[in-house]
């Protein structure tokens, strides 16, 4: 091809070359995995075949290193990299999980600017070309002038092999006559930079404005702990330090030896051909290796013998490593520097602390983030190793391993990624901390398909019903569960009126000791719960029986919590959550000390089957709404006998509360077929039997059927909202009740019509967020409620209107007044709290499941509408 024939020797020529590579890469980016893998293989084979020639060329050109070791590096760069990535997917869809709805798609980054150092020119070129080919990137190499011929030769032979295997022409290119200008131009115009080189080059890469994978200097300390295998340690260090005459950046620069084994270590080094410098020789070598704090270029990659000669020190020609025994780790000590040659500093230490502090200093001054090494007995000195691992600020910590061969991975440890470019983390000013691999040259797109969030249905393990079932249900406390002590929680009214009598009698019959706490007041306080819990603590019940409406059941749940986990923090437990499964706070496990039985005496709250409880801190006035399935009673006993004589106010308020539970659960964004069935059936029963139960309470003529239907409907509605949760009607009722002392059920009733109209809007300002809630469809849901109740209409809007009328009628039938004003005649008092109420209602836990996400201003308008009984559109 014509374009290959010109030299890249100027910025203009480089610009031309970049555009050619870019064009080639565009074509390459369309290649399939199969074609890419063929090219990758062909390139790896070609590089591997040329390993010896390239090694000889590199040594000849740079005058550094050892041919035989460079052969290993070339071989490694071709074979290990191929082996590591031959089956790695790098093109198109690389991962797919249909169930989770996740697809990952790999795309090339574009053109890689590769800066290649003099120390490992051919192997680094092979490595970078191979990983670029595998990832469908183009690559342009900026060689170091000292090694340009061998670097370019390596790149060229890989290009030829790749093109022969089908890669586009020009997918690999290089600068023929390197200059800083061209290198800077390349880095600015490439899409990513793979910079290997000194701090100057790495800094240039990072200031180019392009993402850079730069790596920096190493200054690896090797600790030889007293527990080390001395022969293994010394020979590993020699093996690593002499490799390519010490030019691998992970190579050991200093060895730190415990005083108890110092002489043996020294003897082993000497025995294996290392030379210990005498004091006067030490100074000569110092002056030779470092000039003004910088490394003398003439010693890099030279043999120990040659460096000794340059220093005027006489050593045997076969000397492997020159060792200087020094004490200072300050940078004014020449031996404390990175030496890129077989010259090693040796320190003696008495304590691990001393050794680690020295290692830390050497790393901080010369090899931040790179590599550290230790020789130690992993088993007997695990704690020392752990401390080393914790303290060294290096991204690779190699144990009992030659650090040159160990740091590049896959030779002495097979889970460390093989690479010739080693990230040094933020410590080394790098964007990555690990060994560079193909994943760093890919843009991976994640496709996230919409999936439904799993839902659930949870209820007490036992729910017993039918009028008169109480006595039978309690039997199993003795016969099956073998309970010994029961703690009954109730309120003073129920206690005084004998509601706990049948329970106590039954317990006596079963031989279960029992005691009763009857001081629960409405809106139970933390003080009350604490008092109960204290009694529990001394009585030590193995069963707790809550008897009553919402207040005793809630109070009993809190006592249960305090009894089982006296250490809990209510503020943490009450923290508002978006998803009960993802909340920060993990609720403590309940039931280890006592079994919990709930026996409702009114038809409405549903607390006997819900995971909720509300408690008020009487000191701060804060209400803690607790929600967790750990709070679910173990057994609910729904016996209409307990409700037969409920007064009319309680009957209507708790009855309409049950209606609100069913309506909100049915409209909730978390509603499921399971909760829908319960909610609709509950509503059907409630609309029919609530007026009858109310009438019975008014007349005093018991109506067993109505009471039992109501009891079951209230519990079913409870199960529905225990799983689907509630909505903004409850959010608003909670605050209305708290600010203006309106009974909870009545407060719900007052907001009911407004909230239904609000939620039914087909184009709300904001809709609720939940996967299954795909569009505002609550109008239809309310129409379904209407249909269940036998309410007709020409369309859904009419059905809704008729449902609203029916609700209004129901409220009237059971003696609930139509507006808030009827309960809060002081208009000014209401208006003065309105803003605060609106804001708090917005922030209520119940708001999250509402199908329409309310704005605070909308809540305020609903309050106003419900106050005056005049509907303004919200």
């Amino acid at each position: 091809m014509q374009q290959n024939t010109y030299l890249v020797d100027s910025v203009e020529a480089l610009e031309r070359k970049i555009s050619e590579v870019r064009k080639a890469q565009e074509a390459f980016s369309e290649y399939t995995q199969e074609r890419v893998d063929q090219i990758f293989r062909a390139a790896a084979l070609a590089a591997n075949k040329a390993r010896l020639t390239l090694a000889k060329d590199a040594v000849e050109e740079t005058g550094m290193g050892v041919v035989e070791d460079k052969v290993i590096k070339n071989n490694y760069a071709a074979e290990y990299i191929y082996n590591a990535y031959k089956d790695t997917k790098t093109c198109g869809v690389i991962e797919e999980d249909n169930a989770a709805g996740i697809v990952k798609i790999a795309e090339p980054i574009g053109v890689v600017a590769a800066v290649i150092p003099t120390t490992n020119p051919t192997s680094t070129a092979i490595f970078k070309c191979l990983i670029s080919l595998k990832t469908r990137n183009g690559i342009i190499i900026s060689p170091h002038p000292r090694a340009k011929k061998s670097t370019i030769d390596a790149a060229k032979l890989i290009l030829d092999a790749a093109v022969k295997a089908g890669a586009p022409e020009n997918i690999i290119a290089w600068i023929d006559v390197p200059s800083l200008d061209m290198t800077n131009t390349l880095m600015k115009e490439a899409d990513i930079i793979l910079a290997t080189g000194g701090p100057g080059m790495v800094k240039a890469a990072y200031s180019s404005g392009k993402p850079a994978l730069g790596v920096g200097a190493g200054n690896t300390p090797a600790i030889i702990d007293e527990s080390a295998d001395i022969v293994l340690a010394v020979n590993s260090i020699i093996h690593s330090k002499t490799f390519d005459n010490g030019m691998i950046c992970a190579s050991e620069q200093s060895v730190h030896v415990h005083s108890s084994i110092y002489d043996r270590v020294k003897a082993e080094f000497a025995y294996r051909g290392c030379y210990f410098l005498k004091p006067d020789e030490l100074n000569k070598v110092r002056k030779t290796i470092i000039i003004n704090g910088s490394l003398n270029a003439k010693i890099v990659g030279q043999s120990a013998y040659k460096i000794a000669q340059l220093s005027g020190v006489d050593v045997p020609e076969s000397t492997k490593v020159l060792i200087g025994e020094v004490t200072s780790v300050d940078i004014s000590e020449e031996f404390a520097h990175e030496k890129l040659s077989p010259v090693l500093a040796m320190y003696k230490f008495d304590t691990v602390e001393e050794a680690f502090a020295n290692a830390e200093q050497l790393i901080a001054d010369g090899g931040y983030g790179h590599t550290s090494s230790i020789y130690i007995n992993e088993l007997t000195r695990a704690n020392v190793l752990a401390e080393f691992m914790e303290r060294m600020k290096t991204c690779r910590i190699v144990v009992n391993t030659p650090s040159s061969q160990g740091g590049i991975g896959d030779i002495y440890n097979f889970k460390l990624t093989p690479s010739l470019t080693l990230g040094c983390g933020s410590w080394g000013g790098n964007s990555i901390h690990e060994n560079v691999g193909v994943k760093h040259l890919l843009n991976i797109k994640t496709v996230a398909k919409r999936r439904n969030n799993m839902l659930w249905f949870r209820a007490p393990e036992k729910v017993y019903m039918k009028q008169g079932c109480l006595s039978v249900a309690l039997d199993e406390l003795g016969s099956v569960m073998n309970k010994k002590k029961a703690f009954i929680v109730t309120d003073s009214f129920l206690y005084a009126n004998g509601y706990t009598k049948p329970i106590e009698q039954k317990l006596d019959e079963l031989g279960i000791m029992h005691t009763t706490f009857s001081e629960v007041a409405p809106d139970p306080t933390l003080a009350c719960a604490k008092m109960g819990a204290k009694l529990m603590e001394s009585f030590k019940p193995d069963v707790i029986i809550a008897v009553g409406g919402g207040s005793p059941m809630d109070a009993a749940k809190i006592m249960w919590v305090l009894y089982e986990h006296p250490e809990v923090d209510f503020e943490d437990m009450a923290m508002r959550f978006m998803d009960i499964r993802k909340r920060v706070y993990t609720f403590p496990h309940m039931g280890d000390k006592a079994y919990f039985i709930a026996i409702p005496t009114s038809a409405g709250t549903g607390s006997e089957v819900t995971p909720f409880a509300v408690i008020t801190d009487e000191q701060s006035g804060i209400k803690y709404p607790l929600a967790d399935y750990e709070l679910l009673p173990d057994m609910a006993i729904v016996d209409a006998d307990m409700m037969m004589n409920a007064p009319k106010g309680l009957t209507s308020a708790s009855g309409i509360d049950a209606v609100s539970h069913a309506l909100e659960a049915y409209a909730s964004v978390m509603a499921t077929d399971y909760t829908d069935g319960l909610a609709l059936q509950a509503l059907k029963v409630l609309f029919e039997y609530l007026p009858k139960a109310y009438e019975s309470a008014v007349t005093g003529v018991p109506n067993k059927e109505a009471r039992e239907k109501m009891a079951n409907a209230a519990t079913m509605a409870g199960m529905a909202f225990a799983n689907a949760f509630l909505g903004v009607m409850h959010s608003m009722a909670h605050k209305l009740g708290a600010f203006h002392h309106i009974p909870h059920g009545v407060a719900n009733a007052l907001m009911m019509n407004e909230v239904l109209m609000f939620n039914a809007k087909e184009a709300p300002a904001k809709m609720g967020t939940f996967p299954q809630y795909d569009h505002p469809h609550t109008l239809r849901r309310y129409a379904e409620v209407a249909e269940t109740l036998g309410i007709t209409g020409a369309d859904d809007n009419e059905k809704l209107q008729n449902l609203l009328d029916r609700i209004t009628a129901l409220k009237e039938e059971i003696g609930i007044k139509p507006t808030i004003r009827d309960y809060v005649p002081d208009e000014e008092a209401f208006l003065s709290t309105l803003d605060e109420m609106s804001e708090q209602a917005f922030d209520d836990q119940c708001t999250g499941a509402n199908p329409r996400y309310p704005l605070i201003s909308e809540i305020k308008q609903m309050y106003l509408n419900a106050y005056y009984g005049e509907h303004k559109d919200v």
Partner: protein
Amino acid sequence: MNEKHEILAQRSHKVIYKDGDTVLKVFDSDFSKADILNEALNQARIEETGLNVPKLLEVSKIDGKWAIRTEYIPGKTLAQLMEENPDKLDEYLDLFVNIQKEIFSKQAPLLNKIKDKFNRKISASRFDATTRYELHTRLDSMKDHKKICHGDFTPSNIIITPDGARARLSSEENSNAGDTNETEATNSNALAEYYILDWSHVTQGNAAADAARTYMLFCLKGMDEVAEKYLNLFCKKTDTAKQYVQRWMPIVACTQSVKGKESEQDFLERWVNVVEYE
């Protein structure tokens, strides 16, 4: 020029005369006109910073040769004093570094930039492409500052007036070579005790580069011990890490080599031939 003009110094391309209470620097006729005018301009710019320098009086042509006339400052150079009173070396070095700090505390935004000058010098040097590449890369990574760098700051370029033989700078808290410290110098020195001469090499840039040059100039004169003392004192007084100054040494050595003094080449080559770590 005639015999009434005492010759103060004779350099390779110029002769410096004393003419009454002025000094006349007469350049060879083949000397670059641009360089001469630049030197005069530099001098004028430095004058404006308030540093104690001989005032520029005139740029003219004498017998067809360009000449720069400045004030004559009576006194001895600090170099002479150091030689005459070796026991006071520490005292003199202290003053020397304080004066250099005083210079670093000033700015002259229109001066040439040190990096531009050094890049040109590296390109013009006789080192091979590889070495120049290393030096360019090293220079490129250095921090850009805007401090006045004298460019030939040696004791022979400081004149101590007879009244100022016990001169001291009171201020210790001014410039810091490691950072762009803009603290204003407190030494106004109305009764000038010292004057700084020869602004022909002045640039603006990183103070550490100028310190590295001063260190090198001591070393080139074989004053290794003084050089070490100077560097330690400089680093201490300016709170600069020694290796920060050392990183400039291969670069200043290369720029010095461009002057082509044969006797210096081996020494400078040794300084230049270093590598950055990998």
